[in-house]
């Protein structure tokens, strides 16, 4: 039946959920409205700005362009799941220390794209860093600081090498 709720079993930031979801719900809306994880931002809603980037099974994906039900059986990580309690993730710490923040709206998406990049490739070239955040638009054009902060974080995560 149209509009019939369907079961969604997945994990968000390591926590398992079993929910009843309307099929037309987008992942970004489920995260923000139902789970109250509002760190993930809504920007363009047409898969152009990257503000809603989350990680699904460790890969950067735009949560405005995925049905919530498509996350069934997958592991979703949002910006709320990146820090270890009060201890910031090296990517977050590098952005704070390096002033890669601007207005902050694009920052959660930037962090999630960078996190997926460094999980796959601990020693990215500058070109690879640029490519990883190519889909994350910053209205303040703070790109250089972001790129540098991701490189600083990568070095930190490799143990300073």
């Amino acid at each position, binding site marked *: *039946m*149209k*509009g*019939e709720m*369907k079961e969604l079993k997945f994990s968000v930031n390591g926590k398992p959920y079993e929910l009843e979801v*309307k*099929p*037309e719900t*987008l992942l970004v809306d489920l995260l923000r409205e139902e789970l109250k994880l509002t760190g993930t931002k809504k920007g363009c*809603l*047409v*898969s152009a700005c*990257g503000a809603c*980037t989350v990680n*699904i099974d460790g*890969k*950067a*994906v*735009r949560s*405005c*362009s*995925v*049905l919530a*039900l*498509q996350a*069934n*059986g997958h592991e979703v990580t949002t910006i709320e799941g990146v820090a270890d309690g009060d201890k910031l993730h090296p990517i977050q710490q590098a952005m704070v220390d390096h002033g890669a923040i601007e207005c902050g709206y694009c920052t959660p998406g930037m962090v999630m*794209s960078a996190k*997926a990049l460094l999980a796959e490739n601990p020693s990215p070239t500058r070109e690879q860093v640029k*490519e*990883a955040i*190519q*889909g994350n638009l910053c209205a303040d054009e703070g790109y250089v600081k972001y790129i540098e902060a991701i490189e600083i974080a990568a070095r930190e995560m490799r143990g300073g090498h």
Partner: protein
Amino acid sequence: MLAAFEYFAPKTVKEALSLLAKYKEGAKIIAGGQSMLVVMRQRLLTPEYVIDIKGITDLDYIKYDEKQGLKIGALTTHRTIEQSLVIQKHFGVLSEMEGNLATIQTRNWGTIGGNICHGDPAGDPAPVFIALNAKLKLASSTGERVIDMEEFSKDYLEVALGPGEMLSEIQIPTPAPHTGTAYEKLMVMKGDMGIVGAAVSITLKAGNGVCENARIALANCSSVPLRAKKAEKVLIGKTINNAILTEAGEVASTEADPLADVHGSAEYRREMVKVFVKRVAQIALERARAA
């Protein structure tokens, strides 16, 4: 907000096909949804039933052998194709094309089959597949058929899928010896849809270097990915030089029938077809000589 629909997530191709057979025109398949959710949000598409095939892992594969050629399951993601070592080695043009298709975030979730079935004439894979003489395997509950990629696109966002059919595989033959293929598009920013794009495949005769075969397909130059057959004829049978490449571009430009939009007028696009067909054919030629 999307309009309401009933949702199914079959786990096998068979299950998906029986749902399609049951709901026919009222049903729409979603794979990665990277294009489809945008048109659903715009209410250009309001299906009663959505059949989500993204979880059918049987259709996520890349197989290659020299005799059979390349076979790509419809649910293989763009990112998997981009990073596939087999594809980089034997069909480098596909990996290059994927590297400029939208962004990593989109390529991580979007599928090759979804892209082809969306039927956007500005899409990158279709013209490359046409240049590579690809075929598509379409499955339904009553059997399978194989059609040329070139025959698949019917009109803007319309493809030759029957009501009970779904795309299951893309098949690309191993190119003849001394073949080179290339694709480039005009972008303002890396990852943009091409204002125009051109895919060219050139096969040379062993020994004398005469062009034995050529295939040219254009992106965003018509309501479908457009094969520029007259421009191909300019190349075939010739020892290609700069003047012939220029002529091929000019002829392709007369075959193009582009729309005007905010990214460029129709006249501008036709001019760019001249530039891109020449430029891409030059690269394909160099690759054919090196092959």
